[in-house]
């Protein structure tokens, strides 16, 4: 989760958005985290680089929880 937060904050930092302090699985990537489709494309590349898995491979992912599911890390928080 920490690593994922770091990735999301990196993308937000580049967009001039404030860091997210508390990442939880209900957060919506677009509505809560302010990511557009270009950001999501970047997100999937960065996640793949870190975890070796393309989380958007089988279709669009909407929330942090869904990313964690794909990464098999739901129990972390």
């Amino acid at each position: 989760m920490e690593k994922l937060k770091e990735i999301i904050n990196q993308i937000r930092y580049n967009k001039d958005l404030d860091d997210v302090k508390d990442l939880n699985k209900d957060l919506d990537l677009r509505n809560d985290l302010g990511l557009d489709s270009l950001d999501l494309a970047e997100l999937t590349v960065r996640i793949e680089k870190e975890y070796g898995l393309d989380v958007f491979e089988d279709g669009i992912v909407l929330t942090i929880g869904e990313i964690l599911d794909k990464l098999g890390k739901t129990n972390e928080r």
Partner: protein
Amino acid sequence: MKDKLFFFNFHTDQIKSYGMLINETNEIKKVNKFIYSKDYYEIFLNIIASIINNLPITLLDYDLSEKEVKDLLPNENLDENYPLINRKIIVEENLCDLSAFSGDWELTLYTSGTTGIPKKVTHTFNNLARMVKVSAKHENDIWGLAYNPTHIAGLQVFFQALFNNNSIINLFGLKREDIHALIENHGITNISATPTFYRLLLPTKKKFEGVRSVASGGEKFDVKLKDQLKCVFPNAKIMNIYASTEVGSLFACDGDIFEIKKEFENLIKITDNEIYVHKNLLGKSDSFLLIGEWYCTGDQIEIVNENPFRFRIIGRRNEMINIGGYKVNPSEVEEVINSHPKVILSKVYSKTNSVLGNILIADIQKRNELDEKELRKFLLERLQAFKVPRIINFSKDFELTRTGKLKRT
């Protein structure tokens, strides 16, 4: 003239005068049908011998692997040669004009391209010598060779220098500091190279006042580079040349806006903003796809002025990258990145992406400290969001093609 330097190669410390060139050409007893050598001088000797004896030859890049050569020429014996029984002899005066010997001489080479398999193209002497200018004005030119001589741009430098009896100093594949020293120590006056070659010469506080002519070709030229070249070569005329292996040189201008010369008026046309070249201007090749009598170059232009007709080249059609349905021209993005004062060189390309189909990536060589956020902000002020690379790698070195262009694959 016999003592005049013909060729200097810093790599091998090879020094050859015009006298040696003439003697060694006249001593050749057989001409290789295929030239596959890393010795530039040997390549030049074989080309001259093949012209004066009117024998067709094929140039192969020395860095092609044996397997690649086998794939290109499955049924050929690379050691095949033409024994010269009644060989022709040249004297000094002949070197200014080999056209009298050339007859139906042909030279075959392979396009390197920035992608894909090399294409075979065969040129006549006239095609290769089309842009060569011989005059007293060029008598004291000293050429910096910044291209591989097995490629069309390198051949143009070779012919231009040879016919004016100029010295050629090899600059291809050398370190920046060595190139700077060679330009100064040999009093180089003319350089022809790719924009990438010039960008890699920078940054420098040096000024090469002896250089009178700087030609750029093979890749997209931009106005920022022109300004930088003006600083480094304050007395040089800066030329941007449009040429390709398929057609040789076609246009030249002093910035990035081209005109079609009168003599080519009926041989070049623009359809749907793409450049088409009449088959009469082309070399021969089985891989040319002609539409009627026209060859589509794939180079896209933007019209600057209708009458007189002026245009700017914006990129190649097959280079366009589709990002979520939007077309991005990587050359356009590179140009904007390169215009950042802290950037030396950039390469923009794509990677498949499950969200948008493709995602843009930029490899960047930077001059000073530059962070991703600062660069992105700069780009977003100048480009639509989908054209801004989302993955930025600051890298040290770039891989170049055999012709000194940025490698695209």
